[in-house]
């Protein structure tokens, strides 16, 4: 099947792999949003690092520049050409994930990184983007056949293999990204509504299972499998879902915020204090006391948005969320208006992944979700993640920039 679709794409006369003219047709709204968010990110990161770790800011700017070059290159490339390589990329990333598993197994611990000579790569991070391409390719090839149940189920097999490998690392946050991505792309690909509804229902049924799982969990007790001589010693029961003890502790701390405010709940409590004390207009740039006195943990990575909330207040928070919203909605407009399915699916996938990151990260800082370790695009410190995000932006920009594929404006379609 793969050979046939490749054949089809190559026969398409309009494919021109690299077309620098695409750059002239870039969408200025996306670019504006990205630049403003990047600027906000640098300023916030400066406040978070101050003079002590100023090189973090330089590294972040370096990541932004590398990412910009990559985004420009990706804009010039026809995304359909990239999609045609998706099965290959998928295969490679599954192999890399397996390699991570193996090296981790050999080293006798859990591993997320893979050493390849001088470079260290984190296959789970790039798997997110690869999955967007893979599902685009798969749904494009299927077309309307996605309405058939067996093809629908096959989607979950495709997604499931790398997801399980990532879960096994264990990396719950990245694995969780796969769920909204798959669901959103299935939805836009045109699956049967009741198929999707059934999946969502099955998904929701996880909550009672989590409840049962957490019911007997005691954060003070020894982890499952601990062997003690003391018959009185409490040992946690075996996990049905295979959750590790530290993950259960996080869920427990989320469900019981008063438990151990200096431990797992400490992050959430301090983050809420940080945000809440900002008030309407914030304490002023570089005036955040919670950060200066190190109360806010991870204040340059996962909790950087709390710092923004403290220094810029409700107004600043709303402006940044509005910028994110503008970016995401513009991306979805590409999806809606792209005249062919691959572009629609690609844009949907990219927007969903980014939206999921934005939502979960901010929800963690305000204490409505348990701490998951998902970074915030454009703001959190992390060079490889920044580059990934910029690559997403590049791919997104290339969708409306394709020649002869301009926006099909509403009025044009009728």
């Amino acid at each position, binding site marked *: 099947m793969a050979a046939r679709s490749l054949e089809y794409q190559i026969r398409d006369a309009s494919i021109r792999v690299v077309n620098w003219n695409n750059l002239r047709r870039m969408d200025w709204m996306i670019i504006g949003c990205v630049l403003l968010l990047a600027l906000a990110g640098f300023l916030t990161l400066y406040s978070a690092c101050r003079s002590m770790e100023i090189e973090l800011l330089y590294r972040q700017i370096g990541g932004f520049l590398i990412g910009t070059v990559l985004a420009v290159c990706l804009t010039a490339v026809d995304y359909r050409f990239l999609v045609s390589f998706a099965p290959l990329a998928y295969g490679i990333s599954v192999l890399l994930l397996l390699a991570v598993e193996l090296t981790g197994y050999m080293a006798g611990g859990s591993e997320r990184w893979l050493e390849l000579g001088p470079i260290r790569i984190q296959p789970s991070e790039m798997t997110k983007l690869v999955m967007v391409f893979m599902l685009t390719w798969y749904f494009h090839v299927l077309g309307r056949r996605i309405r058939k149940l067996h093809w629908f189920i096959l989607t979950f097999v495709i997604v499931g293999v790398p997801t399980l490998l990532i879960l096994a690392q264990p990396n719950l946050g990245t694995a969780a990204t796969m769920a909204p991505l798959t669901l959103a792309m299935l939805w836009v690909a045109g699956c049967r509504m009741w198929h999707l509804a059934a999946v969502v229902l099955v998904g929701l049924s996880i909550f009672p299972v989590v409840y049962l799982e957490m019911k007997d969990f005691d954060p003070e007790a020894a982890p499952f499998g601990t062997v003690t001589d003391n018959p009185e010693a409490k040992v946690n029961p075996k996990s049905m879902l295979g959750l590790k003890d530290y993950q259960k502790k996080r869920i427990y701390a989320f469900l019981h915020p008063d438990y151990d405010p200096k431990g797992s709940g400490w992050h959430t409590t*301090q983050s809420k204090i940080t945000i809440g004390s900002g008030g309407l207009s914030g304490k002023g740039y570089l005036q955040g006391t919670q950060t200066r006195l190190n109360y806010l943990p991870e204040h340059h990575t996962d909790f950087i948005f709390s710092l923004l909330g403290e220094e810029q207040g409700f107004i600043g928070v709303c402006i940044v969320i509005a910028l994110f919203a503008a970016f995401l909605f513009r991306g979805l407009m590409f999806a809606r208006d792209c005249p062919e399915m691959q572009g629609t699916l690609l844009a949907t996938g990219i927007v969903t992944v980014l939206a999921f990151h934005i939502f979960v990260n901010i929800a963690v800082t305000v204490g409505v979700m348990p701490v998951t370790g998902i970074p915030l695009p454009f703001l959190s410190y992390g060079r490889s993640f920044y580059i990934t995000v910029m690559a997403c932006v590049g791919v997104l920009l290339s969708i409306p920039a394709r020649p002869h594929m301009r926006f099909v404006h509403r009025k044009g379609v009728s």
Partner: protein
Amino acid sequence: MDSEKEPNRYEGVSTRVQLLALAIALALTLLCARFWQLQIVNMHEYAVMARDNQVWEKRLPSDRGLIFGRNGEVLADNRASADIVFVPGECPEEQREHVVQRLEALLKVPADSILSRMQATRGAPFQQVVVKRDVVKEDRVRVEEHSAELPGVLVVVAPQRRYLYGETGGQILGFLGEISSELDEWKPMGYRMGDIVGKGGIERVYEHDLRGQDGYAVVTKYASGRPEIRTDRRGLPVVSPRDSQGHELREEAARRNPVSGEELYLTIDMGLQKACEDILRGEVGAIVVLNADTGGVLALASMPTYDPNVFVTRDPNCEHSDTLENCERLNLLRAPEPNPMFSRAYRENYPPGSVFKVLLAAAALEEGIIDEHSTFFCPGKFQINGAGRAWHCWRRSGHGSVNVREALAYSCDVFFYNVGLRLGVDKINEWSHKMGLGVKTGIDLPGENPALIPSPEWKAELFASKPVWDQKWYPGDTVNLSIGQGSAAATPLQCAVLTAAIVNGGYRIQPHLNVELDPKESARLLSEKTIEIVQAGMLQCVEKQSPAPTGTGKAAYIEGMKIMGKTGSAQVMSLKHHEQFANEEDIPYEFRDHAWFVAGVLDRSPRISVCILVEHGHHGSSAAAPLAKDVIEYFYREDPTPPVLARLDGTPQ
């Protein structure tokens, strides 16, 4: 350009994308609502929590007030206990090794132990690493001289309580300990967990005067690291400029400096106290010396005693906690009888024995039962109608016909059996309470024992569960009470107060240790006449030249002084029992009588009253009276030399 050219676009795809957009919009709106809740609705709550996070009230400890004796001698003070500490963060990395080696050479502390302690606090480079605790002055000077080549080495001074006379007066001064059950009650006064407070004696009673006002420094509080205390040039505590993690601290508000506690002046004569303790050494007992006119306590000795310095520690968790001193402290607290922590002078009661006759004589004279000429015949024993037994006089051959003066001088029991019966138990009780027996004297020391003068009501209550004939008060009980036996009990301090009333002309005094505390003005209890008669009897008791037979207290006689006294031998068990033993020395120690002697000096200033009790000392005349002579001689000696300090505790003065 046209959508129909695109075979893969199905109808309704744009609707589905729009619904997806709607879902994202909903999620983001939800987040904004949550921010509204945190930042607008609950803002103040979180602002307070953030402010609480920011500042730290670091306490600067104050000095405890000094305690002085009657002659201005310092009884308790605070010595400067200096610790040599090293702050690794203030020393350049490459010099640390060298500094540690220099410290080893200067202070004789093994470098390994310093390095291992530095290793333990590696995460907090600005935490003070104690090199040597409580150093002597030479060590301190040596370190200060070499301070240029010892970056990061500091001398931190903290006050430490010192009782300069050691065990002399130890029970009076009391001791310090960590606050415990008092905390709840004292919290409004600014006490906190871990405070060192007075746990006994004067330290306890005057805790709130002696305690100073702690100072505060309000400094920045970081999520990790704690502020450390240092000493400035004047020796006052200050907060060091960096906390244990090396964060720079800023004083966020004006500092309040600590204020030392009030000075306390006692009536105690430390020389006399020491003399009394030396006189008693080897015995178990107590000596009380009161200023008979004011009630000021000149000495309140009780043996065995203890040295309150063993309770002195700055920090209960300090590395000294396993030292010998600490074992000593535990041994003290769990000591078997005779417990040195327990002052026999005012917390233990004994049958007053013949000392009680002083009260009985005074009461009978006041009530008009007898006058100075009334006589009773003493045949050596006494019988009352209906009682199946006889009460003996201590002198089996009897005293013949005696009046009240002679009865006091020779301690005739039969005379007082008669007086007691005529006076009646109710009057005896009334006068006992008036003169300070059976009630608390009101001394400013904790845990005073009120002792007991039995009454019919008391007996009925005590034997409430027994047959009715056991509850009844019999005339025989009154007879027993008349000579201070039976259930009667008094503390040596109470007996001294009783004697003081005879000395000062009939006023009951309130004994007190603090000179600021004025004794209550009380009405005169005894008439001039009564005082004259009782004094005459008690003088005759001590008088040597008196016609034979001589008084029982002649061992206390001092040439040229008007000393009055009364002996007492309080039976621990009945006389009959004593008769089993041919020799007095054969009686086992715990069955021997307690020896009492009360004395008063009438012709010197200040007039004093003395009470001596020697547990199981046999006879007041032989075991207690000679001690009174020593005490009185010491107090009125020609050349009052100041007493020698018990110990200096390592630091030169």
